[in-house]
């Protein structure tokens, strides 16, 4: 199941021959499937279409294993895990999008600046980016949380900001490579306004893949960061469910062999992150197919 995962920026005859369409469709189906599920679940939770009240406690059945009443069992105060996992999507969906868009918007912008006018901007942008990279992410969040409060939007906004460099760097590198390409140089030489060159060739033809990947990666990362934070105690706070704080709570029963509690949300995270990645790949495939 390997070839389907890849994203060729320039699909070539040679590659098409070696491609295994079946696997690609599988990946596409899985990716899009997961994504749709997540979106659907998110909508359901927003519309309050839930098996249980996410805050309904059942101290009689704490840390229970799956049963008819609770399809995925219950948590440490007997709340329904399935419900909380569903509601948990809210903790990263919009905030995650926020974080991603922040990092992409500024990332792309800075990336392009640095990529096209290295002489003018590279230093400045580079400094800015490295400044962001140098501040220890988690400490930054700890202080922000202390300063304001443990709010997921806030946290993921910080995450988004600290992710700007990654996006920018990728784009910059990409552009650096492209600039050496004859046709761009030609285009610029022909006196096409850089803006068009940027928009058409770089962003549209070559950059969109990267942006897309960054977006999907960013989603996944948002979730994982929030989980790490929850482990340190600074993630989304009770009673609001997030997959992160659910895993973190489950950990306290882990060594007693009660793996279920933390594994369920962990699995949810895995599937979603995986889903996003594959979705990204799949979309890219289409793009490339059409773009070439």
């Amino acid at each position, binding site marked *: 199941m390997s070839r389907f995962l890849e994203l060729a920026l320039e699909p070539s005859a040679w590659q098409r021959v070696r491609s295994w369409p079946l696997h690609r469709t599988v990946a596409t189906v899985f990716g899009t499937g997961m994504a749709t599920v997540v979106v659907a679940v998110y909508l359901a939770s927003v519309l309050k279409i839930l098996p249980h009240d996410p805050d309904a406690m059942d*101290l009689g059945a704490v840390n229970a294993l799956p049963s008819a009443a609770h399809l995925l069992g219950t948590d440490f105060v007997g709340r329904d895990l399935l419900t909380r996992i569903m509601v948990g999507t809210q903790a990263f969906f919009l905030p995650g999008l926020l974080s991603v868009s922040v990092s992409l918007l500024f990332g792309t912008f800075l990336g392009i600046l640095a990529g096209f006018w290295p002489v003018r901007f590279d230093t400045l942008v580079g400094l800015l980016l490295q400044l962001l990279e140098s501040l220890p992410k988690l400490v930054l969040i700890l202080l922000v949380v*202390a300063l304001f409060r*443990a709010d997921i939007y806030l946290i993921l906004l910080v995450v988004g900001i600290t992710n700007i460099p990654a996006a920018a760097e990728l784009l910059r590198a990409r552009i650096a490579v492209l600039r050496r390409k004859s046709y761009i140089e030609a285009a610029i030489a022909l006196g096409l306004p850089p803006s068009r060159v940027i928009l058409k060739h770089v962003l549209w033809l070559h950059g969109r893949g990267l942006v897309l990947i960054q977006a999907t990666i960013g989603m996944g990362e948002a979730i994982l960061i929030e989980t790490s934070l929850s482990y340190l105690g600074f993630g989304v*706070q*009770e009673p609001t469910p997030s997959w992160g704080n659910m895993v973190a709570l489950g950990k306290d029963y882990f060594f*007693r062999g009660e793996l279920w509690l933390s594994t369920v949300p962990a699995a949810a995270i895995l599937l979603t992150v995986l889903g996003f990645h594959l979705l990204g790949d799949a979309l890219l495939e289409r793009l490339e197919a059409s773009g070439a």
Partner: protein
Amino acid sequence: MKCAMVAGVVAGVLALSASGIAGGRDDGFPDGGKLVYGEYGRPATLDPITTNDMVGLRLTELLFNGLVSFSPKNEVVPDLAEKWSVSPDNRVYTFTLRSDVKWHSKAGAGDRTVTADDVVGTLDVIRQPKTLTPLKAAYELVAEARKLDGQTLEITLKRPIVNALGRLSFKVVPTFALKNPDFLSRDDPFVQNPVGSGPFQLSQLTDEGDVVMEANPSYYKGRPHLDRVILKPFADKNVLTQALLFNSADMVVEVNSRDIAQIQGDKRFNLYPYNALSYAFLGHNYRNPHLAKKEVRQAITFATNRQEMLDSFYSGRGALISGPFAPGSWAYNLDVKPIPFNPARAKELLTQAGYTKTGSDGYLLTDEGKPLQFTLKIPIEKENETVKRVALAFQNYLKQVGIKINLEFREWQAWKQDVFVDHDFDIVIANWAFDDSADISTLFHSGETGAWRNNFVGYSNPEIDGMIVEAKTTLDREKQRTINQRLHALLSDEQPYTFLWTLTNYAAIHKKVRHVELHPFKLFTFADTWYIAKKDQ
């Protein structure tokens, strides 16, 4: 002066008996073996003066001695001082030091004996403004410390006080070993590499943060039995328990309550209960007009099913309390019963308090037509699973009677700022721990409501104030008890706190370690008599 001499003689006798227990370790127990104990978090400093956390406090017990110390029976017994006498006006204490106590033989210390200079010096260092130490407040009572000769000194108190002797149990440091002999700051190498006179001496502080201590061969009570004691700091309580269960540690000073069952099921370990004098509570902020109403506070307590929380979150491991003392303390008023769980009564009280209208969302409405809601501030801590549970259940119970509780989790420092300085909270959940004196004066006296004071709920009641002062000043213990029990009754009715429960801490120690006695919270005071049988070493 006659009675004074008697005191001296008594002390002398005790000294004999003390050395009789341990002198030369002729107790027939084997030497050798090492004890690795796990702490949650690492000590900031290792000296007895600047250290300001429990980890450090426990550690210094192993490395240092005081003028006097406490016996397992909690009597004041001679330590560095072999005898003392008290002036008739109970202000001047004259101590005669043992002449056979040597500082740990380390670079700089040679093998010098502990002299009056060291004791006087230590007191001066503690009281020196440039020295930043939590002890300062406690030693304001000392007017002057004066050396009489090599081994005798005299400490003059500003005024005679109860248990003066007990309070003079500060740990003595070799002032000559300090970078600057008249004060101690944390950039002094001493704080990380201290020289003491105690049963164990610091051998190294590894980069892992482990503190390795070795038996002090020339300890004046005789070499302790254990060869080495090693402190291992951990950053994750679950992992700490695993370390104990899988032979990476022989002792855990505070067992995570959720692991107690598992550890005691394991035949290799003994669990030792300690520090029973603490309790958990929900503090109500009187600055909030709604919480200022007694009915509301009482209603909150009536609505909270404390027994159920205790049973399902702590598997019944503890006892509900009815007032500001722990049931293990002498001041607890046994005639006062905890307020029962009774939502109906709670609703009545709220109606009496004038909350008659109910909003669409089922919450009671205030006169301004807003839902009756309070913010419960909870410190964010990596290991606060049970606190979270309590907070959630509490929110749930109050929902039943139409009060809305908003949980707000704050980073620890921010939490302290909110609670102790800005008083920006409605309800707060925390724990109090007391020593044997069960002294609650700072919790409810109206003079203690300022920034960083303990009466953060802003409780103020002249009657209570008067009683508190009287209880604190009288020397008659029965009077103290009566007053405290009246306080208990009053406060139980006033409910400035919703008093929750008292739990017991446990230290888990591997059975190979024998003859273990623990000080209530310093733990290691008697560690010099612990031993490990030859076969287990």
